[in-house]
């Protein structure tokens, strides 16, 4: 039956593995947010090449499963002579995939903003960077926070895929435990607890920001 001791013993190594989950998803998210803003702006810009680039970016990164993308970066790039360290491949892939999803979330929020506000900024000669940074994005972020937190939580969990390039993160560690103890249920539940703890923090940050940005 359910083995409490397997469940509790699991936490040590899982917590240790969690540092990679945090590293990959944390860095991936941070870079993804910045890249996402850039892609979003390109996608809505007047320049056609920029729009096409953004469309392809989103299409490829959302379309091809992240696992396959990791395999491409890690196993296919070496074939053409580019060798990427595992951790760079993991963070980089997480970030670009995140950017594709995040840019779409922001595009929706921006659509919903009354356009007069951007006009008011443009009319006093504000530079586009400032218009985005000061007028559009803060509101888009506030408006889209729940959807954004959704995405970040998904990313934390999706970081488990980076184990294919040999990074021992939480899910992988729990699989190792399942393989030794033959008690996958216990091992996976322990892993779920750690994910839950991380994600509850994210959700709490989201709630806090939502509260603060509410007007």
């Amino acid at each position, binding site marked *: 039956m359910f083995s409490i001791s397997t469940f509790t013993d699991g936490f040590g190594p899982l917590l240790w593995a969690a540092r990679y989950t945090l590293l990959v998803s944390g860095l991936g998210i941070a870079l993804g947010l910045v890249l996402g803003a850039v892609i979003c702006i390109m996608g809505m810009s007047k320049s056609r090449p920029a729009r096409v680039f953004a469309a392809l970016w989103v299409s490829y990164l959302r379309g091809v499963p992240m696992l396959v993308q990791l395999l491409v970066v890690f196993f296919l790039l070496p074939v053409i002579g580019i060798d990427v360290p595992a951790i760079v491949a993991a963070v980089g892939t997480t970030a670009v995939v995140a950017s594709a999803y995040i840019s779409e979330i922001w595009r929706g929020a921006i659509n919903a903003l009354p356009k007069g506000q951007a006009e008011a900024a443009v009319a006093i000669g504000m530079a586009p960077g400032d218009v985005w940074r000061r007028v559009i994005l803060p509101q888009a972020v506030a408006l889209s926070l729940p959807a954004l937190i959704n995405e970040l939580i998904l990313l934390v969990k999706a970081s488990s895929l980076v184990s294919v390039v040999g990074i021992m993160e939480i899910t992988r560690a729990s699989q190792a435990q399942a393989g030794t103890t033959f008690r996958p249920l216990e091992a996976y539940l322990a892993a779920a607890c750690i994910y839950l703890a*991380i994600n509850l923090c994210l959700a709490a940050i989201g709630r806090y920001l939502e509260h603060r940005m509410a007007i």
Partner: protein
Amino acid sequence: MDLSIFVTYWPILVRGFGMTVFCWILGTAFGMALGLAIALCQRYAPAPFRWLLQIYIEIIRGTPFLVQLFVLYYGGPLIGLRLDALPAGLLGLTIYGSPYFAEIFRSAFRAVPNGQIEAARAIGMAEPTIIRRILLPVGLVSALPALVNFSIILTKETVILSIITVPELMYQTQRMSTETFRYLEANLVLALFFWFFVEVISRIGRRFERRITHYLIERP
């Protein structure tokens, strides 16, 4: 690259496609419906009920689908819940998707300027009508890309159904690659199929988006 394996394997791959698409459609539809229901309850239900829903959202959203499915399918029988693989998979997808959809709808509702809802209330419009006629159509403008986003993510989550032996595409390609060692080809199949599938979904999303945003005028 060796395409000859497809001569042998195409029937199971096609069945895999079919199963993936089937699971995705039902999982997304049910998940979205449940998510909408949750978001509406969060808006209208009394506080204790809202807290319960919040707990549900955080727990389901915070844990991996793999674990949920594992617990549901392999742990369920321990407490007498015995489901077949496909129903378990669909139930799992529905539950897993619902909190994400709920949060997206919640953010959609927040984006609707209060004045527009007040205008409807002031003429005595019933709340369900307000939801249908004002809240959803106006809110969807901001939420649609996020909804499409998450639906796309769900396409990828269907591959996890392979752990409970639902014969979807991942299950079939894995079978192909472990039998033939054609990993490159198997990944290529996965990549191309998902890319195509996701492209179809996002095109439909874009088209729908154009329809519901046609009243917006272009920004400067």
